[in-house]
């Protein structure tokens, strides 16, 4: 009886691996076989794989920020391709090799929205990949807010105190305001940050940010899940296909990650944390949900 249970278990494991065996279209196997035999060159094979990744026909998980550039294809990848074409190893082993090629920069993938190469640095803060500014671009002062969309205090500040800051400093042209992501309260924080940039692609950054503040309901409890974020986009009348494509394919992930690194590089440990940057590039740090009066006093002191 025990042997029967073990055999049944082994069969289930193998049948499960068959279910996942359709990760890569089978016709690519022929190409992999030819490549391993030397019938087709490296560039032909790699160009083909690159096309398939960019067209989302095969999906690989790669952390592009940890790339180590290399030009040489390791021999084990070619061997894997040959064994995979013969059926000796599974799809996942073959994909490991492809992921290595992407990570090492041999295959370049199109993330559709790479981080901006144009640098925008104000007072030592790299704002190249943030959302748009609020207020006049030539305002002398810049208020930078490091925020997490799941942080209750951030939402409270944006919903209450920000109105007075807008009236007294932003609308009057004294300062411009910008939110920089520092998602630290879980996956939904990251998704929400990405969603704001997906909305920005359709010209609705501020509207989407406002919806997120209104819909706030806590930390990691579903209000900022992927489905909910898509729902808010639909509610705003955004193109849901484009929005879903942007969000589900993590097209804005690099921007969010970049901004998080900017926050860490300036010693931000909690949210909300503000920096007021003056005309000479000097900056003053304000931690927590402090009242508008403090912002006005800091600006006054800097002038």
């Amino acid at each position, binding site marked *: 009886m025990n042997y029967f249970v073990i055999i049944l278990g082994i069969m289930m494991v193998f049948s499960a691996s068959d279910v996942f065996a359709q990760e890569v279209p089978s016709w690519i196997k022929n190409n992999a076989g030819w490549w391993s035999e030397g019938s087709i060159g490296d560039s032909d094979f790699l160009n083909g794989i690159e096309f398939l990744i960019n067209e989302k026909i095969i999906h690989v998980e790669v952390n592009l920020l940890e790339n180590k550039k290399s030009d040489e294809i390791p021999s084990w990848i070619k061997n894997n391709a040959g064994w995979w074409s013969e059926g000796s190893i599974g799809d996942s082993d073959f994909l490991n090799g492809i992921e290595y090629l992407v990570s090492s920069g041999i295959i370049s993938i199109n993330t559709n929205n790479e981080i901006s190469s144009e640098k925008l640095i104000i007072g030592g803060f790299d704002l190249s990949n943030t959302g748009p500014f609020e207020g006049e671009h030539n305002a002398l002062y810049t208020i930078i807010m490091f925020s997490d969309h799941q942080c209750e205090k951030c939402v409270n500040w944006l919903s*209450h105190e920000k109105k007075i800051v807008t009236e007294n400093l932003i609308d009057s042209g004294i300062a411009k305001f910008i939110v920089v992501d520092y998602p630290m309260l879980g996956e939904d924080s990251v998704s929400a940050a990405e969603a704001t940039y997906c909305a920005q692609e359709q010209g609705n950054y501020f509207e989407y940010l406002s919806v997120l503040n209104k819909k706030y309901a*806590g*930390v990691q409890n579903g209000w900022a899940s992927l489905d909910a974020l898509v729902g808010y986009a639909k509610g705003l009348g955004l193109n849901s296909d484009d929005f879903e494509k942007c969000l589900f394919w993590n097209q804005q992930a690099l921007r969010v990650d970049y901004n998080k690194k900017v926050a860490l590089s300036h010693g931000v440990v909690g949210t909300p944390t503000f920096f007021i940057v003056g005309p000479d590039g000097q900056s003053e740090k304000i931690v*927590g949900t402090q009242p508008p009066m403090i912002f006005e006093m800091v600006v006054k002191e800097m002038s």
Partner: protein
Amino acid sequence: MGLFLPLIYVTEYLFFEPYFLFYVAEYEILNFLSIIVICALTGLVLSMSIYRIKFLQASTKKLRSGLLGSIIGAGAGACCGGIGVALISIFGAVGGVATSVLTNFEIPLRIISIAILVFTYFMIVKDLNIECKVKFDKFRD
């Protein structure tokens, strides 16, 4: 005061930078009041518990329940600021879950904390009434 000052600093009602400031926004009044109640009850419960343990050699059971109430009350709402980040960075996923629970159930947790402290207070008062009763019969003899 020993609990009140750190708590209002952590919950961002007291600021030292860029200016020294004590500020409670209108939408935070309920939270602030709950902190005052928790701190006052903690002061009462802890001092009475310590008196019982030191002078009447009573057990530490009620002190422990008082401390539990204080810890729940103090931890509620530990979000976004230093405590939330510390919890996440030190305890990883477990810290993340703790932060989300403490944030999502801030008010219910404070109510539970107050309930525990009030219950402990009345139990201690009841015990003290028995333990500290002056036996007049002894003096008459």
